């Protein structure tokens, strides 16, 4: 009979119970999908740096989604158990033993958690394979397929179990300190708020986290954990600043009587539901910040998707051999199609990371660019290929020093591949014959950026005497490129001319190394390169748009869950305010404000933090030699405006729905 009563009570609250369990399932599913993506990313990623960008996006999104989904699970289970404590307290008042109550409630809670977890995992598995399948279908050259491992299931279980247990433990402790009547009465009337000035210490802690994030951000390469931690620090810092700074601000607003009383009903939920809104604030801030900072900045720097051709002064770049046959062919091809050909002595230089670079002498570089470098011995200049930005801009990032100070002249061979990958072997860092002194790192675009893989096909400028010595040794190797030929053709002949060149190189040119990580070649055709660049940019933009969409809907879902759970309370409140004589317009505004206030705080905070983020992003990319143009601010503003407008419209539609549920549809 006892169980029957409990079940009846559970059934009568089924709509609410279902809501909370759905939230738990969605939290688990999101966590599963993104952790799953992260776990398989090295297997599915293809196509060099373009595929890598997909990996970066997944890592970044996974980090925010972990926060979001853990907070969502905690929020939903907290709300659920507090609601059920109310019902069970009534049973205790009427005579149920506390021990029995804890047992029954614990069982119900665990059973609900288990079922929602299983559903979440099934949902997550389905979504994972669907998303991966769609990506692979749309971009097979960048995204492969993979199976999810058992570790992802374990991890999702572990996180969900930890959240569930923590919530249960915390709430049982909380309920032990409460008397039965207040448990049965329901919501805490007094949700404490930070009122005193000492809470500003938390704001200072938030600022401290911003500073930590700053140093992490500038001390890392893109896919490194410090880069991810930087974003997590900023989310945490933003949360502390917004939550405690906002709480303090609310208290100050009370002093501004006229403003406060005029907006009392609109601000009421911020005052009365401060604590219970903190988790929601954290969730919304995490998703909005990441969408408006990492995703929006990443998209903005790739816009506009313009005519890349203007950054490529030549139609073809061929790494030929110093032999009569190749010279004769080049000359004949240019003459046949009224084009031009420029020949520059070169050698290949392969770095420790198995990227092949183009090596030329200092005097050749002087002829091409006018820049004079007095290089001696093993001194080199790294001229990083930069597509869009200006040439000869200093690169302060030490990424390129790290990449190119250990080199071997010549193409990537099996021998070098095994040498750099041998875990027990001697590393080039210990062998001075591979070490070069980098005198300067700057950008170059005198022929454009070829090879979609980043950090390849950069120019290494050697001292004249060193260059001549190394080239002399490579001249007799039929597998080594020793002349760089740069072709230009008039538009009408371009396709045909490039086609002929391609055929010649395929049949008689230097064979490409099979060991490079990203596809490198001795022949680059600007037309094909530009096409691939556009495709790569579309892929990168679509990755980020996809992530933004996930974040957008996650934020909306959190808001909806919170609001739908509060509808009975809204109904009571607005029935009462109807009695007090609230006008329709004020009622509409108050309901809108109640629903949207926390989201508005999160969005405002996210925008405020994203602006300096964009500035830091520009500084960082400039230091690496990637020079986002001035338009990045404009495009970021457009993307942010679209995102915010979409949020606004979606929330407005939801508010209309909730108002219909709350306000009496009668003569009133």
């Amino acid at each position, binding site marked *: 009979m006892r169980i029957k009563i409990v079940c009846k009570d559970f059934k009568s609250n089924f709509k609410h119970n279902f809501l909370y369990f759905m939230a738990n399932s969605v939290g688990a599913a999101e966590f599963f999908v993104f952790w799953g993506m992260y776990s398989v990313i090295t297997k599915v990623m293809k196509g060099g740096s373009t595929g890598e960008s997909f990996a970066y996006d997944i890592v970044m999104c996974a980090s925010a989604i972990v926060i979001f989904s853990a907070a969502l699970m905690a929020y939903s289970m907290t709300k659920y158990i507090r609601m059920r404590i109310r019902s069970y307290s009534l049973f205790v008042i009427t005579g149920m033993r506390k021990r029995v109550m804890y047992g029954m409630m614990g069982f119900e809670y665990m059973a609900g958690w288990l079922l929602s977890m299983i559903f979440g995992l099934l949902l997550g598995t389905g979504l994972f394979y669907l998303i991966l399948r769609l990506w692979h279908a749309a971009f097979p050259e960048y995204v492969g397929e993979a199976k999810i491992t058992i570790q992802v299931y374990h991890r999702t279980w572990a996180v969900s179990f930890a959240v569930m247990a923590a919530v249960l433990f915390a709430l049982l402790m909380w309920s032990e300190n409460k008397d039965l009547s207040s448990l049965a009465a329901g919501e805490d*009337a*007094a949700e404490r708020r930070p009122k005193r000035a000492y809470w500003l210490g938390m704001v200072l802690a938030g600022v401290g986290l911003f500073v930590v994030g700053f140093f992490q951000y500038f001390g890392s390469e893109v896919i490194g954990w410090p880069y991810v931690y930087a974003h997590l620090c900023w989310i945490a810092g933003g949360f502390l600043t917004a939550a405690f700074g906002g709480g303090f601000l609310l208290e100050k607003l009370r002093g501004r*009587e*006229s403003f406060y*009383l*005029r907006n*009392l*009903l609109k601000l*009421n939920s911020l*005052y*009365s539901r401060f604590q219970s809104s903190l988790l929601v604030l954290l969730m919304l801030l995490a998703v909005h910040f990441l969408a408006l900072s990492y995703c929006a900045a990443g998209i903005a720097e790739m816009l506009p998707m313009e005519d890349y051709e203007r950054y490529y002064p030549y139609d073809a770049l061929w790494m030929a051999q110093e032999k009569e046959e190749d010279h004769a062919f080049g000359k004949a091809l240019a003459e046949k199609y009224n084009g031009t050909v420029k020949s520059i002595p070169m050698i290949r230089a392969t770095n420790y990371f198995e990227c092949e670079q183009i090596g030329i002498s200092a005097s050749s570089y002087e002829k091409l660019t006018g820049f004079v470098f007095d290089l001696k011995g093993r001194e080199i200049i790294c001229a990083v290929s930069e597509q869009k930005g200006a040439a000869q801009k200093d690169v302060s990032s030490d990424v390129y020093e790290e990449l190119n100070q250990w080199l071997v002249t010549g193409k990537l061979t099996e021998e070098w591949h095994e040498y750099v990958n041998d875990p027990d072997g001697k590393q080039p860092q210990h062998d001075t014959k591979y070490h070069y002194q980098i005198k300067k790192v700057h950008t170059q675009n005198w022929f454009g950026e070829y090879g979609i893989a980043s950090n390849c096909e950069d120019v290494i400028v050697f001292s004249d005497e060193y260059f001549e010595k190394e080239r002399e040794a490579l001249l007799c190797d039929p597998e080594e490129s020793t002349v760089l030929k740069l072709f230009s053709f008039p538009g009408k002949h371009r396709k045909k001319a490039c086609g002929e060149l391609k055929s010649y190189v395929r049949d008689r040119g230097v064979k490409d190394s099979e060991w490079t990580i990203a596809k490198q070649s001795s022949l680059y055709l600007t037309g094909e390169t530009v096409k691939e660049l556009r495709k790569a940019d579309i892929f990168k933009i679509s990755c980020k748009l996809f992530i933004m969409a996930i974040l957008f809907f996650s934020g909306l879902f959190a808001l909806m869950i919170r609001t739908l759970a509060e509808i009975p309370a809204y109904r009571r*409140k607005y029935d*009462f*305010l*109807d*009695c*007090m*004589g*609230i*006008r*329709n*317009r*004020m009622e509409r505004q108050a309901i809108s404000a109640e629903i949207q206030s926390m989201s508005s705080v999160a969005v405002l905070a996210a925008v405020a933090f994203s602006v300096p983020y964009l500035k830091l992003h520009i500084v960082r990319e400039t230091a690496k030699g990637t020079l986002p143009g001035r338009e990045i601010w404009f495009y970021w503003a457009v993307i942010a405006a679209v995102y915010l407008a979409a949020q606004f419209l979606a929330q407005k539609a939801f508010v209309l729905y909730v108002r219909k549920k709350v306000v009496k549809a*009668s*003569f*009133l």
Partner: protein
Amino acid sequence: MRVLEVRRLVRNYRKSAMKNSKDEIKVLKGISFKVDRGEFVGIMGKSGCGKTTLLKVLGMIDKQTDGTVKFMGKDTKGLYGDQLADIRRKQIGFIFQDFYLMDSLSVEENIMLPMILGKEKPNIMKKRARNFAVRFGIEKLLNKNPYELSGGEKQRVAICRALINNPDLILADEPTGNLDSKSGQTVIQSLDRINQKYKKTIVMVTHDPQMASHCTRIILLKDGRVLDVLKREGEKEAFYQEILSRMADL
């Protein structure tokens, strides 16, 4: 002047939630009465006789199925939306059994609530709220929140709120129902004072004959109809005895 005029008031509710259902529960079955300015009218009856429904219709929170309700000479049938809101805010004060105070607001803000909804000036609101708080002995509680108050204090806050806009009519639904006898006495004496000193018209629903004896007139309801109307001619004690004897007929 007549504050309320009710003629053949009928209120039915649909039994089923389904829109096309014709099954109805008849709660009020043709009630007629009048309330003049300055009267203190009590409505009594057993549980389920329609007292609260009647009060809701009088307060324009609910609409009648048939019949006429005139408030200050105006038929309420033609009033909608903001017109009703304005009347409820400016001309009617509500006092509920469960107090209905907003725990998230301070006592002062709760008292000022009707004026806040009317977008009055803060200095006027505060002055009036303070005046009423002093009158009802709760000036020291203004900065507290309702959950910190006793039942009697809460009801006094609710009374201040009901009076703040100087309404023409006060509707009280079992105002002492959730209070101990001492607090209940305090509240009913406050209502007495409001009626006699400030000449406010009060309509009070109650099932307590002791509280009802403070009224100048009692409308007895039975099964949705007016069974009888009792008028207080002499002392409260005698009126109380009369009410007790008539309650057996309910």
